[in-house]
């Protein structure tokens, strides 16, 4: 397995190239690029500029592990407004295009958003309708769409079997799950999600979760690896059981108040330990 971390973790004042140096020095193999979340990678970034990003990544001795985005929180694929939905679709298409330019074969998509305004059944149906053609587009490009399990935030596809049925209904070999082991909270166990989805896992996000905080307070439920409630030995064993040998991507929320680069070193070391199984 290889280690990656999101470019949205790079301290804002550092810039992309200095951040890449840090990622490399900390011991990562790759970097996850977040479309729309960082100054250097926006929807308006041209193809030539994207190629330049790739050149910088490779010059730093890294590769791009995948293309993610947080843009679908504001423009969900499940929006009722057809113009918003068209924009959401365009975001996925741009992710696919840039994945090819960046030399990676996976993107992360937040598939749908259940709200008090847009109910579950609509979101489910609308996500199927938008993801099926996008699956065809992704397949032609040789890219896999990984729908992330954002259980609590999305209020959608809460259980692993429900997610499994959703992927069956999408019925595209180019659409799988980008599994976040920190997002499951009290709705289940990450190791069971890994077992159920096995070969459909496109990438894995790593973070730990403090289940006792729940989602009701104003404190983050997320924390650094091994500081929370995830059962890491079980997660590691499940990865072995299903034969997952792809990217592990750190998605840390907590940032160090001082010496922000220390988080990169600490996270890389923790990931090394997880990969080696010394738990």
């Amino acid at each position, binding site marked *: 397995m290889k280690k990656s971390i999101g470019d949205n973790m790079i301290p804002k004042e550092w810039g992309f190239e200095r951040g890449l140096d840090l990622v490399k020095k900390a011991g990562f193999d790759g970097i996850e690029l977040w479309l729309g979340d960082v100054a250097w990678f926006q929807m308006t970034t041209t193809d030539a500029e994207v190629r330049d990003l790739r050149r910088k990544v490779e010059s730093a001795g890294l590769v791009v592990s995948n293309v993610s985005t947080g843009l679908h929180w504001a423009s969900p694929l499940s929006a*009722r407004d*057809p113009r918003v939905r068209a924009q959401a679709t365009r975001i996925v298409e741009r992710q696919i295009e840039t994945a090819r330019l960046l030399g990676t074969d996976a993107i992360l998509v937040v598939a749908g958003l259940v709200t*008090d*305004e847009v109910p579950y*059944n*609509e979101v489910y149906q609308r996500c199927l309708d938008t993801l099926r053609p996008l699956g065809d587009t992704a397949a032609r490009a040789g890219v896999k769409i990984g729908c992330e399990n954002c259980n609590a935030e999305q209020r959608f596809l809460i259980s692993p079997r429900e997610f499994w049925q959703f992927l069956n209904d999408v019925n595209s070999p180019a659409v799988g799950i980008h599994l976040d082991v920190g997002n499951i909270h009290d709705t289940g166990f990450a190791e069971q999600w890994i077992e159920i989805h096995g070969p459909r896992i496109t990438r894995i996000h790593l973070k730990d979760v403090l289940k006792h905080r729940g989602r009701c307070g104003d404190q983050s439920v997320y924390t650094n690896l091994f500081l929370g409630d995830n059962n890491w030995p079980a997660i590691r064993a499940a990865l072995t059981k299903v034969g997952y040998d792809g990217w592990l991507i750190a998605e840390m929320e907590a940032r160090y108040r001082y010496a922000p680069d220390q988080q990169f070193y600490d996270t890389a070391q923790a990931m090394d330990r997880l990969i080696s199984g010394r738990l």
Partner: protein
Amino acid sequence: MTRRQFLATTAAAVSAGNRLRGRSPCVLLDLQRGCLRESVAGYTAVFQPRVVRAHMPGIPHCAVVLVPAALEISPVAARAIVRCLHAGATVILESAAGFLDQRAFGTERAVLRDYFGITVEPPVRLWPRQTPYVDYLWPYAAKLRDFSRVLPLGPPAGEPIAWVDNLPVALKRRSGRGTLIFLGSPVGPALWAGDAEATRWLSAVLATVS
């Protein structure tokens, strides 16, 4: 709803469903890019109507014409709908003009006024709100999911049949020899999403067509 009303409505809905499936007296006018596709999908899945495209010169003779989630009704389509009304059809005209920009809404508003005599106010965004329903009073009292935006009706040119937050958003009235049922809050997407109450309510509406 009382037990008696429930049984009457259910029987009517089943009967209407059988009639529709058997003789296909129901035609769906597909405005293609001029409508919300999921509404077309909803009506098609539930009522299995004969589908005709908006660019066709005429709509076949039928008892019921469904016009799902219209965003833009061309003059050709509007005239075809009016001919159906004059011929005695019941037309369910559903508008999704709440999703248009201001300029396009102005155009659509003029079409509704000039061809159908319906005055609509500018769209209202319903959310955030406390309850997600539109209250229908005819043919029976029902709560159907709102679709985020509604077209409130202006001075009544018919009998209001649905309300949301004290705004009338649907009406029915005689038009020519036929009946026009105007929905300022799309129901088709709820059909498409499998909303059983939406299916029951529309079946009951169709059951009123003699």
